[in-house]
């Protein structure tokens, strides 16, 4: 068993990066991810890792440098939040399109305007179509475990795709909690040696990355990207199985909680799932059959498996910590896409909660479960999308 420590989410993920010792890291500071990279930079200056840190003038440059370093042949990591991820947006598509297995912890934070430094999922949801794998983490332990697994997943030769590991800004990134670390040697052994199969610096075998492809082949290139995404879930499950052998901690494409015999359920990402589980226990004690589903892998989205897990329910509330203005919340849209294949469809409602770090409190989960109980009894939905926890 590894060392048990009381650390923040940022500290835990920085520790994972230390254990993995990437070749190159290009980063630019942004709250709340700053503290993660600051800790990792200390490991570099203390000689604990031999990563080459590239200090750049913006996140756009950070991702550009990561792309160059990854194509050249290195194992590459960076981290960001919010506006930083937004500024990287153009380069995210290039990392994915060039099939470069860069790993990036994203410490979820709201987007401006108005300026806000606190946690919500607007940043990573804005990057959901970029072709990156996205893993979400409820706790510091999950963020650490996901970071270790992300390298194996991203670098797997069946896929070779960049991966984001998301955790809630401040709520997890800056809260101290109990985390069990894995031994350094075990992490090193688990992620293994990285070898770029088409290194740009192999001058004897010249390659091109990101050439111009017009109407003749672009469409086929994108179909290839679509197809590789369909292979990701098997890789994620295979890596999770190995990870469980090493640590005893079990991961899947999503987590279910008291869902098997449930009639109503909440679908929710990241830290708010924990608070919801405690509320579900209270409702179970009252005899109400409530459950929860927490997606871990949001990209690619495991539609079929999630449909299978939700098919017996009468009513589902999908709670989004991000909005798509003029549309439904991003998680809600995916869950609707999943339940589409179910014959006897559950009623599905969408709640937007916790934007800009607004606290998600047990009474919000209670109100949602009460509403779901009503819908399960009457079959009647009053409103599909609504903000909760709003000060009136």
């Amino acid at each position, binding site marked *: 068993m590894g060392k*048990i*420590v*009381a650390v923040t989410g940022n500290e835990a993920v920085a520790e994972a990066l230390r254990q993995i010792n990437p070749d190159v890291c290009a980063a630019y500071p942004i709250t709340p991810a700053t503290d993660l990279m600051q800790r990792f930079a200390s490991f570099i200056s203390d000689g604990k890792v031999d990563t080459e840190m590239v200090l750049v003038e913006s996140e756009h440059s950070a991702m550009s440098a990561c792309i160059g370093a990854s194509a050249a042949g290195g194992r590459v990591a960076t981290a960001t939040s919010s506006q930083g991820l937004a500024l990287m947006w153009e380069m995210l598509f290039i990392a994915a399109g060039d099939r470069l297995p860069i790993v990036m912890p994203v410490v979820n934070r709201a987007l401006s305007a108005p300026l806000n*430094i*606190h946690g919500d999922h607007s940043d990573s949801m804005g990057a959901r179509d970029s072709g990156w794998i996205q893993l979400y983490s409820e706790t510091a332990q999950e963020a650490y475990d996901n970071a270790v697994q992300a390298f194996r997943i991203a670098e797997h030769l069946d896929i070779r795709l960049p991966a984001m590991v998301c955790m*809630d800004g*401040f*709520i*997890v990134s*800056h*809260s*101290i*909690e*109990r985390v069990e670390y894995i031994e350094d040697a075990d992490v090193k052994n688990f992620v293994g040696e990285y070898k770029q199969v088409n290194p740009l610096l192999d001058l004897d075998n010249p390659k091109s990355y990101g050439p111009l492809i017009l109407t003749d082949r672009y469409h086929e290139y994108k179909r290839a990207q679509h197809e590789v995404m369909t292979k990701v879930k098997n890789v994620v499950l295979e890596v999770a199985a190995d990870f469980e052998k090493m640590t005893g901690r079990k991961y899947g494409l999503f987590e279910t909680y008291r869902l098997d015999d449930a009639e109503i359920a909440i679908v929710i990402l990241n*830290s*708010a799932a*924990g*608070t919801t*589980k*405690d509320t579900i226990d209270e409702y179970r004690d009252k005899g109400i059959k409530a459950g929860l589903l927490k997606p871990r892998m949001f990209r690619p989205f495991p539609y079929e498996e999630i449909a299978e897990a939700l098919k017996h329910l009468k009513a589902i509330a999908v709670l989004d910590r991000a909005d798509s203005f003029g549309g439904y919340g991003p998680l809600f849209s995916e869950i609707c896409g999943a339940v589409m294949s179910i014959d006897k469809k559950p009623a599905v409602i969408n709640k937007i909660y916790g934007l800009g*770090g607004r*606290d*998600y*409190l*047990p009474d919000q989960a209670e109100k949602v479960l009460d509403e779901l109980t009503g819908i399960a009894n009457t079959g009647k939905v009053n409103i599909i999308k609504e903000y909760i926890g709003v000060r009136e």
Partner: protein
Amino acid sequence: MAKTIEIRWHGRGGQGTVTAAKVLADACLSGGRYVQAFPEYGPERAGAPLRAYNRISDHVIRMYCPVLHPHVISIADATLLDGVNVTDGAQDDTIFLVNTSKDPKEIREKLNAKPGQKVFTVDASKIARDCIGRPLPNASMLGAISKATGIIDMDTLLANVKKSFGKKFARKIIDGNLDATKRGYEEVKEG
């Protein structure tokens, strides 16, 4: 299921209140307990009122929201008794600990504490001035918490104070904080 102990700290920026919550979490981790420590993040200014929280449990802690109904309320600056609603969400048996030179009976009256609620006082700022030369009450507050609540034994607490302060400070400051922790334990009064 064993109870999770929830603590709310009230302090002012620069007094070491957040550090105190962190040291307590670290100390309670030993013995296999699950812990959380987190401040309420706002504009971080010296002197501004702040809250920090702890959860300590024998079981996995899943709650990720501020403590709403604390079992322990620790007030590191008595001037906050007038400006902040420190009793907000208190339970019928909540334990209050206040850094003040005043008598615990007087504070009990000021808080309008219920019969089941316990009120403790410790002159943590004076102890800190004596031991480390600056009125930073966190170490003595931790000693007082140990005595008032029993959630952590002194040996473990002292070892963790030493470890936490040892990362940043010179020997003299560490020893001063260890003395302050001990005196906080010895000098806390119930009323």
